[in-house]
């Protein structure tokens, strides 16, 4: 009887669990699992421009091994992601300052820091393009006041990546500050009172109470930010513009994917690049989950 009990329990539920899961699962299958599977199958295909395809074996993978754009794109994407991740400590600082008790104008600061998130990315990119203009840009004007002749930000290889990364970092701050603010408000005030009784100054409190208790939020942010970083495309595309001499050296992986799929009409090879992006994100996220045991404190 014991043996039979769970089975009968299940049959009584009938198909209901499936029915309730279906709306979500169908979406996940159709829009996530199926494209991943299709991409995997496509990576072994050679495509014609109008969707006709033939089996190509490992040819697309071989192409990738000899493509000189790939290593540079991996490096560019990694550098961009690393720089954008630096936004998290900055956001921790800003969020802590903004959440001080009795801070005047705190609403105003919240709006100010959230504005980038509600602005249109391409419009933002075009404004930054002007800010970084070599001749007329604000950045080089400011550098000029210090007696430094500013570089061609948008059109020199490494400078362009740096400029795009700075904008990416700036654009990642709003979400980080919101999430960290929520995290900060979840820290019980008794902990601060106890720390004060123990004679901890505000810096000491920040280090020993605030940061450790924020680590779950920080961990979540580092996962999200890294994944977004590896998917760098629209910002790069809009900021670099046409006929840019730095473009060949500033391509990201997703940019390469775009040009293979939509400009070169080579959807098979584009699928291999998409899989590479998926693999890098997967491995990096897995590593982060492994490492979190060492530094993330769950109460």
């Amino acid at each position, binding site marked *: 009887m014991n043996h039979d009990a769970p089975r009968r329990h299940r049959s009584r539920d009938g198909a209901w669990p499936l029915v309730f899961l279906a709306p979500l699962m169908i979406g996940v299958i159709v829009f996530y699992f199926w494209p991943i*599977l299709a991409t995997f199958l496509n990576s072994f295909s050679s495509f014609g*421009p109008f969707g006709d395809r033939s089996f190509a074996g490992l040819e697309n993978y071989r192409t990738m091994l000899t493509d000189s754009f790939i290593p540079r794109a991996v490096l560019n994407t990694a550098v961009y992601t690393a720089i954008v991740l630096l936004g998290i400590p900055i956001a921790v600082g800003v969020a802590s300052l903004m959440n001080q008790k009795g801070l005047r104008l705190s609403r105003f600061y919240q709006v100010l820091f959230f504005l980038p998130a509600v602005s249109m990315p391409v419009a933002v990119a075009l404004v930054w393009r002007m800010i970084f203009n070599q001749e007329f840009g604000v950045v080089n004007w400011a550098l000029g006041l210090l007696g430094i002749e500013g570089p061609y930000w948008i059109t020199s290889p490494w400078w362009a990546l740096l400029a795009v990364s700075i904008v990416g970092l700036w654009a990642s701050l709003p979400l980080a500050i919101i999430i960290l603010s929520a995290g900060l408000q979840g820290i019980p005030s008794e902990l601060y009172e106890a720390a004060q009784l123990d004679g901890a100054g505000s810096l000491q409190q920040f280090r020993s109470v605030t940061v450790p208790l924020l680590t779950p939020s920080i961990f979540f942010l580092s996962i999200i930010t890294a994944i977004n970083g590896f998917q760098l495309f629209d910002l790069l595309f809009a900021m670099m513009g046409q*006929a840019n001499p*730095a473009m*060949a050296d500033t391509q990201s992986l997703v940019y390469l994917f775009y040009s293979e799929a939509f400009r*070169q009409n080579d959807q098979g090879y584009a699928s291999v690049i998409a899989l590479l992006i998926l693999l890098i994100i997967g491995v990096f996220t897995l590593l982060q989950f492994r490492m979190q045991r060492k530094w993330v404190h769950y109460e």
Partner: protein
Amino acid sequence: MASRRAFLGLAGAVTATALAGCAREPEIDPAIGPLAEPGLKDEITFGIWDKAQEPAMLQIVDAFHEHYPDIGVTISTTAFGPYFERLRIQAQGDDLPDVFWINGPNFELYASYGMLQDLSELEGFDPENYPPNLVELYTHEGAPYAIPKDFDTIALWFNRDLLHRAGLDEPTDSWSWDEYREASGAVTRALGAEQIWGNAGGLANQALIYPLIMQAGGYVISEDKTASGYDSPEALEAFRFLDGMIRDGIAPDVRYTAENQPKDLFNNGRAALYPSGNWEAALLQDSPVRDHLGVAPMIHGAEEANVIHGIGVAMSARSRHKPAASAFLAFLGSEQAHRIQAEAGAANPAFIGTNETYVEAIPEFSLDVFVDAAETARTYPASENTSAWLQLEELLYPKILGGDGQLESAAEELATRMDGVLADES
């Protein structure tokens, strides 16, 4: 287990449907058939990409209605950027417009995949009516698959005020490379302090780099379309000519022109010389310095060479309205339609003998220079997958002329990658 099996079954079903969706069996009646009878009642679609030419196209449709009052023509305008991405999706979905614009870089792709109607038998269409180098652009395996609509060639736009201030006379005939370089140098030396350049520099392919390579005696793509010419001594000579002017400070460098487009430099009176096409006329008509602008024949090197390109109008091979589409297409190719677009100043018509109308429509400039150039101009270089190597040009031209010693290696890389694209085509 039941649930997992159900999901697998679902996934399988999705796969099967998707695969079935891919395998469609085309039914094409290759014959174009006769033109529609004047009383035919039908609806066709017409795809174009230039909003500025829409009024002229509407006028043409109105004139068409005098012959075929009951054939409705719906014009669908898509911006040039996404036009060909959209067209490719429409072709995949068997949903091409009945009649649509096509250009040189994309023609071969659509023609070789059977997307375009063979127009050899189209009543009222005679290829003799258009410049032969333009007809050649729209010929696939010996048969015409699109009718030339208009054309552009390249000439030397100049700002006579800036030339005079540098003590130079304006060009009246074709300048040699050396004369072009000297004039550019003189202007830059005289007016450089005012941030005025001798020439506008830049990396335009059709308007600058293609003609220069041809003038050096080279080619962009070999005649059999199997090899890139970018690593040839002639191409390198053309690149070195441009590179030399940048190095000597006569022309703006590529980083400068990436931030300040050559078109804008010339249009705003900050460059004295600007090799470009007749398509600039529409913009330069309204230039703040329009009173000083003029146009002279294109410069020449060891050879004289110009590049001709024009839009073509094609019919979908799978159109379900071939009689009506044929009637409209034949009208688009007629002298009357070409005169209408010329009068509107919309484009330089391809129909031989109608150019005067266009030249007179924009009397500010002596645009006949562009018409004269058509006679000897070479066909715009293209292959089946032109858009693939156009992107390589975009990516690597700036490295070739970047001034950091990569001229030869970047030209080599462009040639190798382009050869790879061409090898995949065959």
